[in-house]
Each structure stands twice: as structure tokens, then as C-alpha cells.
């Protein structure tokens, strides 16, 4: 097969990176072992086999979250070149931190214990089993993989924002302006976006392909985020969900969210 121009450039680019980088083994070794220190940026394909699952899911053990901690957000946004506009109008984010009564309005009531009432919990794209955003997208720019990850093709998105209207969780952001000048530190291993496209959490599919867990999961010192295959009864996420009561956001809507909260 003759490579297309884009493929050729990609191959050429990777070859060039290979020439200047230190030997791969030491680099990826450091990543797998010490995720917090620089491990946020996965580099060229390493020797670790890709992580695969029938259905990826995450459990949030919200009680473990340190008050005011934003480590998962910082790590995610650094890894994915998420811009920081510093104002709510242009705001783009993949992980948010929201008050528990806003995340679970149907479950909140005045007699909840103070420890829960005052809680802020991280919110992500729920990677729904039955995602409304995928249904409404007029170009299939947002789509669902066999392992459940709901993905975006930033090159196909026309910026109609139908998916933003369709998402019942407010998980999607639009690049209302050119995001590049607002990226604090560009990670060359992940694409930046152009203005006029929508983006959201991708469950770190680029890391899973390299055998590494999502950035938010590896960076969390409290181990509040547990990620794994929901169909594998031996996985961390399954063991956690099997043992404790968990809830999901707006399950009544039939979207089948894959982020489980333990409060």
C-alpha cells in the first residue's frame, strides 16, 4: 500500500523523534513506575502491550478525594493540551470539579451528612453505553469504540455543537477561539485542537494503546480513581463495584454512564 501524504509525514515524524530521543526502555520504564513525575506525557510507542477491555469504566471513590485537590484535572489537561482560557465563557475542560448536589440533584437532600454535602467530585465524560452525542452527530465525528470509549475525530467535526446540546452531563467543550496560545505547556505527543471543534475526555485511549492507565488515575495519590474492564470480574473496578454501593449520574435517562461514584 502506498502511504498517503499524512501517513508518510507521520512515519517521518516518528522516525525523526526516534533519532533524538534517549533509548526507549529507560523512558517508558520510568513512566510505568513513577506516573506522577513526568509520566503524564507518554512518549513514542513503548514495549508495554496495549491495555484492552470489553468495556472500560471508572469508579470514583469520592470520599478519598482531598478537599481542593485538582491533581487529576491538572494531569489530564497537561497530557491532552487542554487550553486554559481563564474565563467561563471560553472554558474548555475534560475533567471538572463540581459540588455533589449539582452532580446528583435527584439524590441530594438537606439531611445528607455534612461530610457528603460539602463534597466536590470530579466529573468526566461518562462514555455512555448509549451515547446521545454519537446519535446526534451529523458527520460521525464523535463515535463509540467496541470497548465503549466515546471518541472524537477533531478533523471531521464541523463545530455544529449538536453533541453539546445532546450531552445530559455538560461534558463537552467547544473551542470558541484558537486554543493553542492558551495551552500552558504543549505536549508534543498529543494533538492540539484547532478553533471551532468540540472536545472532551477520551479515557486516555492514547495511553491505553501504550499500556498505561489514564493520566488522572495514575496521578491520584489517594487512589480515588479506579479504572478497568467492567466485563472482567477480576479487575480493580469490578472488585470495587462488587463490594460497595455505587451510583451513576442521571441513570434515568437511559444513557448508561460508565463512571460510577462511591460516596
Amino acid at each position, binding site marked *: 500500500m502506498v502511504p498517503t501524504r499524512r501517513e508518510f509525514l507521520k512515519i517521518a515524524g516518528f522516525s525523526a523523534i526516534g533519532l533524538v530521543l534517549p533509548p526507549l526502555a529507560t523512558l517508558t520504564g520510568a513512566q510505568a513506575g513513577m506516573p506522577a513525575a513526568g509520566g503524564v506525557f507518554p512518549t513514542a510507542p513503548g514495549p508495554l502491550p496495549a491495555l484492552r477491555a470489553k468495556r472500560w469504566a471508572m469508579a470514583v471513590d469520592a470520599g478519598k478525594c482531598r478537599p481542593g485537590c485538582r491533581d487529576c484535572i491538572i494531569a489530564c489537561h497537561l497530557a491532552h493540551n487542554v487550553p486554559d482560557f481563564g474565563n467561563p*465563557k471560553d472554558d474548555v475542560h475534560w475533567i471538572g470539579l463540581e459540588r455533589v448536589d449539582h452532580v446528583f440533584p435527584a439524590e441530594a437532600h438537606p439531611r445528607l451528612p455534612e461530610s457528603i454535602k460539602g463534597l466536590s467530585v470530579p466529573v468526566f465524560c461518562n462514555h455512555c453505553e448509549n451515547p446521545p452525542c454519537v446519535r*446526534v452527530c451529523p458527520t*460521525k465525528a464523535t463515535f463509540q469504540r467496541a470497548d465503549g470509549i466515546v471518541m472524537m475525530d477533531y478533523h471531521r467535526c464541523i463545530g455544529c455543537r449538536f453533541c453539546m446540546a445532546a450531552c*445530559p452531563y455538560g461534558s463537552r467543550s467547544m473551542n470558541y*477561539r484558537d486554543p493553542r496560545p492558551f495551552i500552558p505547556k504543549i505536549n508534543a505527543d498529543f494533538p492540539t485542537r484547532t478553533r471551532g471543534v468540540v472536545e472532551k475526555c477520551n479515557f486516555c485511549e492514547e495511553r491505553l494503546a501504550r499500556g498505561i492507565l489514564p493520566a488522572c488515575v495514575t496521578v491520584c495519590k489517594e487512589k480515588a480513581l479506579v479504572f478497568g474492564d467492567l466485563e472482567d470480574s477480576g479487575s480493580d473496578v469490578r472488585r470495587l463495584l462488587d463490594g460497595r454501593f455505587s451510583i451513576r449520574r442521571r441513570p434515568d435517562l437511559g444513557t448508561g454512564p460508565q463512571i460510577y461514584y462511591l460516596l
Partner: protein
Amino acid sequence: MLEKALKGSRGYGIWVAFLLLLAGIGFFFYLKQLDYGLGITGMSRDVSWGLYIAQFTFLVGIAASAVMLVLPYYLHDHKAFGKITILGEFLAVSAVIMCITFIFVDLGQPGRVMNVLLYPSLTSVLFWDMIVLNGYLLLNLVTGWTVLGCDRKGIPPPAWVKPLIYLSIPWAVSIHTVTAFIYAGLPGRGFWLTAIMAPRFLASAFASGPALLILFCLILRRFGRFDAGEKAIQTLAKIVAYALATSIFFVLVELFTSFYSQIPGHMQHLKYLFAGLDGHNTIARWMTVSALTAVAAFVLLILPQTRTREPILALACCFVFLSLWIEKGLGLVVTGFVPSPLERITDYTPTGPEVAITIGIWALGLLMITMFYKIFVSVRTET
């Protein structure tokens, strides 16, 4: 026939130049938007659709309303409409072109618009809306133009036009139904999640569109030496009256369901729309105007004494148009986003460039209507 749009009186020339100027200003700001991104508008992460999509929604209704002339004339042989069906069809053509333009300027990546055709997604209502809107545009352009061309030559229209005209009747219903489905099928937006959305859209469309046509007929009589006829205008006025009544009724039905059931997810949006939430009441103030003008117009249109007096009829039609423009062209879209899924109340205020682009597209539409109607009047006064 097109050349007839190019020659006209001094007043016609000034009007066309004025509209061209507004369209030009809009285009200038659109170039700015292309350069900066949609951040030049008042839209935000929480309120991600604004004036553009709201205008699109309102104008789909104007386009669909042509059926209120075509149906009585072609299916019930209501002869009074014979002179003006073409006006309805040309209004539909101009309105659909405005709709498509509004969608286009709302895209973050307009250069990729063909992706909708290259990677068609049959589950997306937007894909189907594109199909029905373009189909409707074609139907009205072909039938309107052919019938007018035959009028000019003094021959009856060819036989193949009739089936197309019949087809345009259900097609008109389809454009507004599919447009309503854009909103009514979204799980997390309680304000839009109502089966009555499509009927509501149709009712308000059949009031606002004919109201606009009445105003155009009155303008054409005054400035265009074309008289649509008292009977046609009065029939249209009755259509407006009952469609408006239906539209008001549907809104009241929505209010009952939400406020009697007391489900917060449904009530909150309506509270924001009509009263405001936590002091955010800009839209609520507009909606007060909308409600008052709707009731006033309904009274003026239902009473024969006021409906048959032309200046009052004109005022009532302005009220109908204003009321329903506020409801659909302002309130309906924004309120669906407030409060947000995370219960945030985010105000949306259109920016100057956004308003300029919006006015520019309206000017473009009015320019098309002006030129179509100029051609129409020229042909009709010659024969």
C-alpha cells in the same frame, strides 16, 4: 424574468442599496468571526446555541407557512388566494435560504460543511433537516418560478407542476417537524423534551408566516401597485387568529404539565423563561413583551370590528410577528440551556458582531424577498 428585479423606481433603488449595505456590514463581521472563531459571539460552554440557531428555528416556521396559501388554493380551490400563492412560495424560498445561511454561520468549521454529505449519519436529526430544507427550497423555487413564468406568457402552468405543489404541502409540515425533533429528542434538556414541540412549532409558524404575508400585501398595495384583494387578506387574518390561539393554547398546556406535576427539571426552565431565576431575568422581560403582544394581537384579530380595519390589522400582525419572534427567535433556544446540566445559570447576551451578522442575514433575506416580489409585481402588472 430576473432582469425585472434590476430596474425600479428611485425608492426601490435606495431600499435595495440599504439592504445591501446591511448585508455588507454583516459579511464584514462574519469575516471577523472566521478569523477569531465563534468566541466573537455571546455563546459559551453552557449556552452553546444562541441567536443564529434561534433565527434558523424561527425562519423554518416562516418558510413552512407558505402551505397556508398553497393548501387552501390548490386543495380547496379558495380562489382569493390565486393571486398571492406565489408570494407565499417566494417567501418560503427566501426564508429557507436564510435558514441555511444561519446554520452555516453557526458552524465552528464552516469549511468542513460538506462532511455532512461525505459522512452521512442517518441517526442525526441535523442530517435529515438538511435533506428536508433543501428539498423544500427546490420545490418552492421550481413551482413558484414556473407558475410565474407561465403567467407572464399567459399560458396555463404545465401539468408536471401540480404534483410538485401537492408534494410541497406535506413537505412544509416535515421541515418544521424535523426542526422540532432537533430539540425534542435530547434526553437531558427538560425544556425541549416535550412531544408537543413539533405541534407548537407548526402552530406558531402558521401564525407568524401569514402575519408577515399580510404585512407584505399591505406594503405591496401601498408601494407596489399590487392589490392582493380584501378577501385574501381577511382569510389570511383569520388563519393568523386561529393559529395564534392554538399557539397560545399549546404554551399554556406546557405550563400546566410542568407546574402541576411540579417536577423541578421541567419547572426550572419555564421559571427562567417567564420570571427569571436568581435575578437573571433579561429573557423573562422579553417574554413579558411576547406574552402581552400575543394576547393583544389575539383580541384584535378575533374581533371582526378590529380585524377588518386595515391599520389595526397591520398593528396586530406586527404584534404577532414580534411576539413569536421573541418566543422562538430568542427564548426557546437559550432557555433549553438554562439551567445547565450542572445547574449553573449562565446568561447569554448576543455581542455586537453577532447581532450585525444576524441583521446582515435578515437583510439578505429581505433583499431576496424584495427582488422576488418586484419580479412578481412587474409580471402581474404587465399581463
